[in-house]
């Protein structure tokens, strides 16, 4: 693996201990720990992944794999707000492409990119279970439904 000094996130020591204490087998705490780090710093830094591998006593390569396997984990810095636009079939049928194009136009970025002011990062995502109110997207933890290109302008203004 890469030559990286292991590190644990500052200020999360207690939370880490509390999480691990809930698991009979320490490895079971891995996803919850990664969620906690991301909640705290927005993304998963390499040196912290190495630190977590040491903390749980599991191979570094496993932690790197998991951090990249699950799409909700960010392994690179993201903007203050993360937008996930559903591009699965039910949203596609309801003109998700027009909505997505509008977001790209307003923010001047493509999928996987962050605006220059660091405000937004944009991703497409698999079905988010909002198909009856398609097209839909999430901004951070909040879901927005029945989107139209017009609605997008107003929603983005809220952030």
């Amino acid at each position, binding site marked *: 693996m890469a030559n990286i000094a292991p590190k644990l996130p500052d200020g999360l020591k207690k939370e880490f201990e509390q999480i691990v204490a*809930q698991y*009979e*087998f320490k*490895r*079971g*705490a*891995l*996803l*919850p720990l*990664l*969620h906690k780090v991301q909640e705290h710093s927005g993304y998963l830094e390499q040196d912290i992944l190495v630190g977590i591998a040491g903390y*749980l006593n*599991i191979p570094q390569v*496993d932690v790197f*794999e*998991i951090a990249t*396997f*699950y*799409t*909700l*984990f960010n392994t690179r810095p993201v903007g203050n707000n993360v937008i*996930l636009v559903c*591009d*699965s*079939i*039910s949203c*596609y*049928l*309801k003109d998700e492409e027009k909505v997505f194009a509008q977001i790209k136009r307003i923010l001047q970025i493509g999928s996987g990119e962050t605006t220059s002011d660091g405000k937004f990062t944009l991703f497409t*995502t*698999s*079905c*988010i*279970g*909002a*198909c*009856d*109110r*398609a097209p839909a997207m*999430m901004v951070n*933890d909040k*879901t927005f439904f029945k989107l139209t290109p017009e609605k997008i302008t107003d929603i983005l203004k809220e952030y």
Partner: protein
Amino acid sequence: MPQTKILLKNIGTPNSEHIKGYLKNGGYKALKHALGELLPEEIVELVKRAGLRGRGGAGFPTGMKWQFCASDPKKIKYIICNADEGEPGTFKDRILLEQDPHSLIEGMAIAGYAIGCTQGIIYIRGEYIYAARLLEQAIEQARAKGYLGDNILGADFCFDIKVFLGAGAYICGEETALLDSLEGRAGRSRVKPPFPVNEGLWRRPTTVNNVETLCSIRHILLNGDEWFRRLGTSECPGTKIFSISGHVNKPGNYELPMGTVLRDLIYEYAGGIRDGNKFKAVLPGGASSPCLTAEHMGVAFDFYNLARAGSMLGSGALIVMDETTCMVGAGLSVARFFEHESCGRCTPCREGAGWIVNILNRIYNGEAKLAEIDLIVELADNMRASSFCPLGMAAPNAVVSFIKNFRDDFEEHIKYKRCPARKDLDV
């Protein structure tokens, strides 16, 4: 005809997500009945007699699964609720989780008692963070009232539930991949056997059940197996929540008896096709299922009848397409989903899913050769025959069914650089 609301009955009533609202509607009566009057094996027998089949997609008889797990001699066992709900077009578990979480908690506690587990886990997809927080609160409320914890309702039964948040991976809805995810691994399906009921989470006997399955339990306990069997079809008793989306006037969740026919689902309940358009096709069981067409309006929606019609019920997610749908574009959307969600372990699925996207992209843009349409079908045969797990086997289902039924859409893209269905499309 109104819907047959049993699971959805509390939805929309005041405070349905709170234990106060739930108790007002008769909540936790089934758990009281179970712990006070029934032996664990009597509950397993009751669920078996009711003929309940799993609502997560595979339709396995729930009582039988419980019996296998209960009879394993190992001591520590788990009951896990699969709340990963990732099949495109499915949004039925979301409504139960967000608006009736105590039904699930009660169902899990009853399952735990019947099987002999002290621990339940709800594996919920990361995108349902709102529901996950709500569940945490509901669990807290149930603990405070003594419906979870030690010696529940004074009985010799201890049971508690933990919520575990996924992180965005469709494959983790497959029960063995889900177990790997709970063990801090990338979610990849395990070889079966051994089955989870014998060697599941941490190699201990584990029952995995869908949200809707577990929410059905309390109704069976309160009303009996004969009542349940009177609903639905003889092969598949009970009601089913159908998630209907796409080009219908009234998309939504509809709870109806198993065996409701396609025509009624679309025209009587979902309000018919939008803009007075003609119906073109439906994916009856999410993006993994082969499509049905207008000739199938009379097909009864249950596990067996849909299999006989050449498709599958899956999670009960109907994705409806009207005459303006470009089947190449729709196929591409489905294909991209599977390319993205393939776990990457085995070649047929990982490579095949990518190839199909590649070819479909070129067909969509009018750049492919005609023979490549059949290349997709050939690739699909390979994926079905040699993929390691059901994801890869099902991945090409929709696309191949589109080619079979709407070959003109594909050919015209290539031959005439136009789409017969979507006149506005600039190929």
